[in-house]
């Protein structure tokens, strides 16, 4: 019920971009194909080279290497903790800002871009300086910091999703039907924010699984750190592991674009850090 209301409303207020698809493929002049071919080659040749260097036999071997399972397990654990913490912290905050403090949206945008301003290699120095000893002794300090790194993406995903909703109307409707805050959040807002949630989750997971800088400087063997340390002993297997990492990211992002593409109306489909500039005009 709630989801249906949300869909109808958003369809009204969030029209697709106004551009008309007037120039089909066939009218692409030659120079465009040249550019796409040259750039495409730049991206494909290294992949081919890596596969050739590795040979297909190295791929299964990756899983049997010393330390692989420990490193992979740590990365997955960190990804899980980071994602849960990010969602629990950011979703209520963004909803709250939209409902009660809409004037602070600009400020929130500014604050959540800060983790981009402070390079991770710099941030980790400060973190190791101020973190209490009991946290420094566990790898989970990394998860706490990854929440900070994920903040710009999570904030923008939720912000884009909420902009596409008639939030005030939904909340008032839900409350006038007797729902409390918990019910409103769980049964009205969450279903409407599915694609935002999905993109925030995927971006966070991809970030954690690929993060090298902080993990290596905090001296923990996450998956990306393991790949490097491992290189000292076997080249082909490292390259195989790298290709696997690429494929995993690819699958994750394809998942967003497929699921997001199917339910486009959520407003959070193609969220990146920069979808800010493509927002639905304020009403």
């Amino acid at each position: 019920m709630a989801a249906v209301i949300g869909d109808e409303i958003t369809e009204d207020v969030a029209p697709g971009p106004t551009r008309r698809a007037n120039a089909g493929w066939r009218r692409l002049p030659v120079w465009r194909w040249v550019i796409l071919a040259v750039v495409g080659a730049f991206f494909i040749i290294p992949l081919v080279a890596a596969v050739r260097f590795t040979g297909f036999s190295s791929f299964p071997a990756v899983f049997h290497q010393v330390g692989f399972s420990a490193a992979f397990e740590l990365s997955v654990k960190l990804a899980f903790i980071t994602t849960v913490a990010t969602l629990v912290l950011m979703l209520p905050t963004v909803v709250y800002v939209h409902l009660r403090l809409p004037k602070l949206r600009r400020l929130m945008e500014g604050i959540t871009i800060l983790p981009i301003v402070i390079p991770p290699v710099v941030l980790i120095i400060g973190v190791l300086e101020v973190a209490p000893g009991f946290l420094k002794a566990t790898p989970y300090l990394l998860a706490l910091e990854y929440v900070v790194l994920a903040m710009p993406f999570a904030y923008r995903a939720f912000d884009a999703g909420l902009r596409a909703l008639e939030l005030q109307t939904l909340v008032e409707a839900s409350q006038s039907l007797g729902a409390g805050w918990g019910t409103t959040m769980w049964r009205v807002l969450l279903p409407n924010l599915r694609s935002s949630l999905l993109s925030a989750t995927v971006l966070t997971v991809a970030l954690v699984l690929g993060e090298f800088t902080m993990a290596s400087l905090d001296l923990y063997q996450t998956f990306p750190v393991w790949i490097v340390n491992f290189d000292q002993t076997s080249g082909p297997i490292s390259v195989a592991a790298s290709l696997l990492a690429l494929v995993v990211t690819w699958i994750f992002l394809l998942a967003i674009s497929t699921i997001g593409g199917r339910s486009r109306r959520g407003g959070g489909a193609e969220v990146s850090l920069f979808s800010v500039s493509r927002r639905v005009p304020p009403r």
Partner: protein
Amino acid sequence: MAALRRARTLAGLLPFAVYVAAGLGAPAVAIAIGAFQSSANGRFTLSNIKDAVHGVYLHGFETTLLVSVITAIVPGIVGFLVAYAIFTAKRGALLRRAVITASGVFANFGGVPLAFLFIATLGTTGLATGWLTAIGLNPSTHGFNLYTTSGIVVVYMYFQIPLMVLVILPALEGLRPAWREAANNLGAGAWQYWRYVGGPVMLPSFLGCVLLLFGSAFSSYATAEALTSGSVPLTAIQIGSFLNGNVLAGQQNVGKALGFGMIVIIAVVMACYAVLQRRSARWLR
């Protein structure tokens, strides 16, 4: 009374505010303070900052800036051309979807796996090295070495070009077909359209995106570290070596001064980005 209500309303932001203060604010303050503290006795000093802008560290900043400027401008132009090429393809067409998804993947691809990909391609026994040598263009005899600054520049293109495609596409979508049609009706050709309509509208977005690429290259650490094992003097790598303990005792706070310098430079860049973003928002909505 009103103040009380206001305070109650703001209290809802408390968890977020506390988290940001602890996870981001405190470390940043610690760096800023440490940058002005003597490593030996904790007193106020400017010597860390002085060290950070002289000798090897100055060289580090120079190299980082050079790499960042090149890997912002070149991928900026290439990425813009790619984005424009697929922008004119039909919305939802396979080509367009493929390029956008691939850009998402490659823009997030970096660090170690990327370094390995290029070692297999342009390393001494790499695939492309073999091809180039076969046609008499051995890269290493033409001043290219994957494990130095020139290599870093080439490798950074691999995530900077797709990043540009992703960030400039929304801006391109703001170019209304109606403007083009209006210009054509008034007798303008392609050149005049770009010179007087499309170009001026796109310029702030384009520059904004290039600044963003600059920031992305500037704060990269993992790729260069994995590729060169820390042998190229980039500021990020120098900071990393402070944490790895590869420096003289009594110098730890120079690392914080370097970090502080990086924050200042990126902050200036992001401020320019925000200004440009606001200018372009006037047309693109």
